[in-house]
């Protein structure tokens, strides 16, 4: 679910073009936007405090053939939340799980990992390499 929460609706839809058709579903709740209160820790590692809210969209669906899917994703993208809920339900079907993991979840996870790695490399390029008087002379 974390992978689908980090992807945009457009990215999920683009991957679904390479996947087997999803089973028909109907909406049980939502998609609807709301808030989650984000907590931090006092001093970074102490007791909790309320930092501030973030927008979150949730959706619950039921597959016509049976099976529930739930999604909570950061932001206000209703389509993303519905696709994530539908995929959550479909990924629980043994017949579809493998194909959907390979066509949708794994490629999105790889894209996200690549973006994370790029950011980490940019951060690494700004790491300070201190030199001492000794190696200044060398």
């Amino acid at each position, binding site marked *: 679910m974390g992978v689908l929460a980090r992807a945009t609706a457009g990215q999920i839809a683009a991957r679904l073009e390479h996947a087997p058709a999803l089973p028909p579903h109907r909406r049980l709740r939502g998609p609807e936007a709301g808030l989650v209160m984000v907590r931090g820790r006092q001093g970074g590692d102490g007791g909790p405090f309320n930092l501030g*809210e973030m927008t979150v969209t949730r959706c619950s669906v039921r597959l016509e053939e049976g099976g529930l899917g739930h999604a909570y994703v950061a932001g206000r993208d209703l389509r993303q939340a519905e696709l994530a809920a539908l995929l959550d339900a479909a990924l629980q079907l043994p017949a579809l799980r493998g194909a959907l993991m390979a066509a949708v979840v794994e490629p999105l996870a790889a894209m996200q990992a690549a973006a994370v790695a790029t950011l980490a490399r940019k951060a*690494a390029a700004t790491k300070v390499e201190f030199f001492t008087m000794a190696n200044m002379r060398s």
Partner: protein
Amino acid sequence: MYVAVKGGERAIGNAHAWLDETRRGDPALPELSVQQVEQQLGLAVDRVMAEGSCHDRGLAALAVKQAKGDLIEAAFLLRAYRTTLARFGTSEPVETGAMRIQRRISATYKDLPGGQVLGPTFDYTHRLLDFALAAEREAVPPAAEAEADPTPMPRVTELLAREGLMRREPADTTEPPDLTREPMRFPTSRAGWLQALARGDEGFLLGLGYSTQRGYGNSHPFAGEIRMGEVTVEFTPPELGFAIELGEITVTECQMVNQFAGSKSEPPQFTRGYGLVFGHGERKAMAMALVDRGLRAEELGEPAEAPAQSQEFVLYHCDNVEATGFVEHLKLPHYVDFQSELEKIRTLRKGGGA
């Protein structure tokens, strides 16, 4: 007392139409998109999310555009919008120790595990206006990359705590107060004031933090560590019963390290002031950490005489939406109040002359 005054509708309507026209500016120029605000005025967006106390870059960018760049007005718009949304629940506390670091610096240790990572910073720029930005530019070359260092980055406060030189945070598991649900009561807990400071006005907290450095509170701080990057937000939906990831948010954290003389029960050691804000908001996180430490004076048995050490002074005045409301209400008609004052002055002067 305020009196209902009719007859202003036409003037108000025309004033708002003019506001809309001035917001758009010269129609010969392309209109600014919300996406451009979000991407290219990112620190304004971050400040509005922090002080609006609502993490949503798109909404904050829209608020900045609608407010014509007035960031306090934009925070007000965001606070008003959040009241229209239902709350699904509360996240697990974010683990800033596991942050994916974009920036991490320490002013107390030169060589610390993971090193000093500058990130996208204004520090060390010369603060000379860059006229190249005023001209059409070719595509900006991508920033340099280097092999990422997998060394974990422990907190500076943890390094000191392991040596017994830093006071550990008490393992407080009580449900923190939420000032969006119940009005703040004094004295409030540290959890209560950290929420208020996290959404407090950057300028007000900066001034107060500065006052503690200049002697009004006597806090001798060091910037133990500042880190900025992404943290994962986890939430347990009641229908699932286990935590799922909602996504990632960028936050800035500051740990100030301060002296503490010790007490009857505790040896002399360092204590910390803590700042945590949505987005990339380093000045705000540092100011928040200074003021947090100021407010801990009583807990640590120090004299609490300075403004930054007074809960009521700091917490009643740090919210710019509340402050704006009370200052700007002075613009509302006070015709009857003023008439009564006029009468009083006239009467007094007649009496004095007799």
